[in-house]
C-alpha cells in the first residue's frame, strides 16, 4: 500500500477549511479530533446534539462533570459565550440550516453525495443517533475517511451498497489520499497526495474521479 495520511492528518486538512466564526458539528468518534486542529486566529463555535453550543476541550481527568458532555458522551468544558438548550432546539439548529459545517465519518460515499455511515447491514443492534439529521441542514456536509476500507475496498463509489444515512447530502470528502468535491453527481478531484499517481488513485476509487480545474498537492504536516 502506498503512503497515506493518518486520521489526525485527514482531520487537520478538514480543519483548514473551517472559516472563522463558523458553527460546526463534528460527528462522534473520529470527526471529533478535527477540533484539535483549528487554524490560529480562527474561531469555530462547536455544536453538539445534546444541547450545547460553544464548548471546548475535555476537562483534565478527574474533573469531569457528567452533566456536561457531548453527543459522544465524553466530558467537555464550556467557553465564554456558551449556551444550553433542549433537544428540539438543538435539532432545529441542525435541520434549520443554521450550522455552517457538519463533518462526519463514512462507510461509503457515492458520487451523487449519498452517504452510508450508520449501519453495516442486518446483523447486530442497529443505532443511528443524530447522523440522519446532521446530513440535512448544514451549509456544508463534509466527510473524513480513509480512502479505502480495512480490507482495501473502495469507499468512494458510484452508488452506496450499505444502508443510506442520507441522499445527495455530502459536498466534500477528505480521504487519506485526496480531497474531492461532489458536484453535479460527480467526484471532482481537488487535491491529491503528491506521492500517488492519478492512475493509482483512480484504481482504489470506485467511481470516476473527474478532473475539472486544477488538482493541488495535498500537503499536510507531520502530526504525532
Amino acid at each position, binding site marked *: 500500500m502506498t503512503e497515506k495520511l493518518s486520521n489526525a492528518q485527514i482531520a487537520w486538512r478538514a480543519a483548514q477549511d473551517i472559516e472563522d466564526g463558523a458553527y460546526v458539528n463534528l460527528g462522534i468518534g473520529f470527526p471529533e479530533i478535527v477540533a484539535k486542529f483549528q487554524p490560529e486566529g480562527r474561531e469555530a463555535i462547536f455544536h453538539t446534539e445534546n444541547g450545547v453550543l460553544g464548548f471546548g476541550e475535555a476537562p483534565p481527568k478527574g474533573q469531569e462533570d457528567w452533566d456536561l458532555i457531548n453527543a459522544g458522551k465524553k466530558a467537555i468544558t464550556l467557553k465564554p459565550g456558551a*449556551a*444550553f438548550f433542549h433537544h428540539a*432546539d438543538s435539532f*432545529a439548529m441542525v435541520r434549520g440550516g443554521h450550522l455552517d459545517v457538519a463533518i462526519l465519518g463514512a462507510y461509503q460515499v457515492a458520487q451523487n453525495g449519498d452517504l452510508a455511515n450508520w449501519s453495516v447491514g442486518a446483523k447486530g443492534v442497529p443505532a443511528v443517533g443524530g447522523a440522519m439529521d446532521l446530513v440535512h*441542514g448544514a451549509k456544508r456536509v463534509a466527510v473524513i475517511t480513509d480512502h479505502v476500507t480495512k480490507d482495501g475496498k473502495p469507499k468512494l463509489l458510484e452508488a452506496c451498497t450499505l444502508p443510506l444515512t442520507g441522499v445527495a447530502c455530502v459536498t466534500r470528502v477528505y480521504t487519506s489520499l485526496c480531497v474531492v468535491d461532489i458536484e453535479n453527481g460527480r467526484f471532482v478531484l481537488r487535491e491529491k497526495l503528491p506521492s500517488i499517481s492519478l492512475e493509482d488513485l483512480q484504481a482504489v476509487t470506485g467511481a470516476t474521479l473527474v478532473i475539472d480545474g486544477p488538482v493541488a498537492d495535498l500537503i499536510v504536516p507531520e502530526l504525532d
Partner: protein
Amino acid sequence: MDKTIPTLAEAVADIHDGAVLMVGGFGGSGAPIELIHALIDRFVATGSPKNLTVINNNAGNGRIGIAAMIDMGMVKKMVCSFPRSADPRAFTEKYLAGEIELELVPQGTLAERIRAAGAGIPAFYTPTSFGTELAKGKPVKEFDGRSYVEERWLKADFAIVKGQLGDPYGNITYRMAGRNFNPLMCMAAAKSIVQVSKIVPAGGIEPEQVITPGIFVDRIVEVANPRQEEDMNRAGEVYA
C-alpha cells in the same frame, strides 16, 4: 467572534426593497421600536426599503413603529393574526383602500409556522382553523379520526427584534413578556438583527439562562434606554 454593530443605521443597512421582514413584539411588549425607526429614517433619506412584506402579530398602532412604516408606504403586505389595535388607522385606511395586502393567520399557527421555518420543518398539521374560511385551499388530513390542516413554514429575509441582554456571540435574553415571537423570529430569518438594552461580555449571560442561542442571531446593537411603544402612543407621538 463579535456580532455587535455600533449603530442602528448600520444594523438595518442591507434590508432591501421587497424583503420579507419579521418584526418582533406583541403590542408594545418586545417591539424593536428603535430598529423600526432606523428603517424609516433610511426610507425617508433614500426611498428604501419599500414593498416590504412585514410579519408581526399585529399591524401597527398609532403613528409610530409598524404603523408609521405603513403610513410611509413602505409596506406592501402584512402577515398577522390581529390587525387591530387601540388606534389601527394606518393599516385600516390602506387596507380598505386596497393599498395593502393582508394574510390573516391564527396566532398559534403564525407562531408555529415561524418556528417550523427555523427548525427545518417545511409543513405540519394543526387542528387550528379546520372547517373555517382561513383553511380554504389548504390540504387537510385525518389522524386518529380527527381532521387537521396542513400549514407551511414561514421564512423571512430579515428579523428585527428586541432583547434585554446580548453578548458578542449573539446570545440573547428577553424582558418578561417581551419574549413572545422574538426567539422564533430569530430562528426563522436568514438574518436576525437584535436590539438589546445592554451588551455584556462573552460569559456575561449564564449559559443556562440564554433564551436565544447566538447561532440564531447575526447582529446585535445596543439601545441603552429603549422607548416603550405603549408609552409613546399614550403620549400621542408621531414618527414621520
